[in-house]
Each structure stands twice: as structure tokens, then as C-alpha cells.
């Protein structure tokens, strides 16, 4: 592992440890909900991580579509990063759903409700799982183009998820960021949000950097193998043509 990656991991683990300490032992307990509200400090960073990595997936998919016929190397890199960011985004989304459900059971008394925020988020997770299945079981440049187009459509659900608590009456609490005045959590609790947000986003970047290496190499090997087979086919066709004459 490269030195910068080791250093990044060490700093990330330090930030995560600090986030854990601040979330559980430093910030005050919520007067209405009690300690269960501390789930937010892992729940909110998961959504921020998800939003960030799905945005990277969208940007890389657009870049892939733009350069795929002009710059093969850049297209391959963009495509590898698109797969990587979708995977990390799906992991964050899953954690957001599970931690939200655990909080809901303790506070609302139910594990799940089909309100606009929860339903649109579940749909988002399923769309990106479908995207990853397409990537896993499809092959070739057509699959990459199809996946890039699918990523654009998939991302349309992200603003829908974000705005769902504003557009519809939902059971979900008011937004922490960009909500109405007085919505969100108390400023004295924000350090726990900031530390954990920084820590988990840094962790996501670390994992994505590792995953990108293997994905890019696998795609490069697949492309090289395809070109080698194409060369061999041309060679055989050439020899057959010579013999035929």
C-alpha cells in the first residue's frame, strides 16, 4: 500500500475515533429522545457519503459518455471510478436505511413506514443495486454505455429523496441541512455531526481509492484481452485469405 494511503488511513481512523468520542461522551443528550438520538451522528454522515459518491458516479458516467470514442484511457478510468463510487454509495445508503430503521423502532415504535422519504430512499438503493448487477453480469463497451445512461437516470432520484421532506408531509424529521429556521438539531450537538461526517467521508475516499485500483486493472485486462482476441482473429482471417488464394 502506498505511503499516502497509509497516512490517509491513520488520519481517518483518528477522526473516526474522535467522532465516536464526541458523539457518545461529549455532546449533550437530546431532551426529548434521550440517548437514542445519538444514532443521528452515524445516520446523517451516511447520507452525506451516499450523496457525495452518487454525485461522483454521475460525473464519471457523464465523462465516460463524453469521451468514450475519443480517449479510451480516460473513458476507462472514468468508468472504473463510476463503478467504485456506486459501490461505496450503496454501502452508505444501506447503512442509512438500517440505522434509520433502528432509530424509528425506538422512537416511532415501527421499523418502517411507506412515507415519501423512506420509500424514495429504498427505491434509490434498489436502482443502484440494479446498476451494480448490470455491471457485474454484463460485459463489453455496450454494457458500459448502458450503465452510464442508467446512472444518469438513477441520480434523478437523489434530489427527489433530498426534497421529499419538503414537498410532501412525511413522518421523517425535518432536514438538518437547508431546512426551515429552527429545523435540524441543536448547534451544541453539531460537533458530533461534523466529526463523524468528516471521518466517514474520509473512510469512503480511502475505500474507494483501493477499490478503484482493482476495478481499473480488471477493466484494463478485459480490454487488453479483447484487443488481443481481435488481433488474433485478424491474423487468422489474413492467413485464411492467403491460403484461399
Amino acid at each position, binding site marked *: 500500500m502506498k505511503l499516502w494511503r497509509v497516512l490517509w488511513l491513520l488520519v481517518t481512523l483518528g477522526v473516526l475515533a474522535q467522532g*465516536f468520542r464526541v458523539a457518545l461522551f461529549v455532546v449533550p443528550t437530546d431532551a426529548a*429522545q*434521550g*440517548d*437514542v438520538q*445519538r*444514532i443521528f451522528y*452515524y*445516520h446523517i454522515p*451516511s447520507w452525506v457519503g451516499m450523496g457525495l459518491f452518487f454525485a461522483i458516479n454521475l460525473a464519471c458516467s457523464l465523462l465516460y459518455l463524453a469521451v468514450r470514442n475519443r480517449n479510451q484511457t480516460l473513458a476507462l478510468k472514468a468508468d472504473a471510478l463510476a463503478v467504485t463510487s456506486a*459501490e*461505496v454509495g450503496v*454501502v452508505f445508503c*444501506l*447503512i442509512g436505511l*438500517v*440505522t434509520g430503521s*433502528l*432509530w424509528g*423502532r*425506538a422512537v416511532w415504535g415501527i421499523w418502517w413506514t411507506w412515507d415519501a422519504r423512506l420509500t424514495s430512499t429504498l427505491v434509490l438503493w434498489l436502482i443502484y443495486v440494479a446498476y451494480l448487477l448490470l455491471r457485474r453480469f454484463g460485459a463489453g463497451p455496450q454494457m458500459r454505455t448502458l450503465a452510464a445512461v442508467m446512472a444518469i437516470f438513477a441520480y434523478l432520484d437523489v434530489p427527489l429523496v433530498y426534497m421529499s421532506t419538503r414537498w410532501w408531509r412525511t413522518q421523517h424529521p425535518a432536514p438538518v441541512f437547508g431546512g426551515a429556521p429552527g429545523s435540524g438539531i441543536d448547534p451544541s450537538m453539531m460537533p458530533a455531526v461534523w466529526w463523524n461526517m468528516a471521518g466517514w467521508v474520509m*473512510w469512503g475516499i480511502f*475505500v474507494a481509492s*483501493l*477499490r478503484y*485500483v*482493482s*476495478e481499473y*486493472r*480488471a477493466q484494463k*485486462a478485459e480490454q487488453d484481452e479483447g484487443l488481443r482476441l481481435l488481433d488474433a482473429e485478424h491474423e487468422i482471417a489474413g492467413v485464411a485469405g492467403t491460403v484461399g488464394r
Partner: protein
Amino acid sequence: MDMGHRHLVAAYAVTIVIHLVYVTYVAIKFRAAKKLAR
């Protein structure tokens, strides 16, 4: 331990476990890619 505390512990544990499972999968793939490159 009441339900709120149980769920708080479960939420933190689930977050860490899911990330650890995924990073293990990523590390296995990373090592395989490194071996292939050699």
C-alpha cells in the same frame, strides 16, 4: 439496558460491521489485482 440504548449500540455496531465487511471485500480484490500485476 432499555430499547433506546440497545438500538443505539446496534446502529453503531451495524455501521462498523457493514463497513468492515465491505473493506474486507475491497482488500481481497486489491490484493488479487496486485498479484495479477506482478
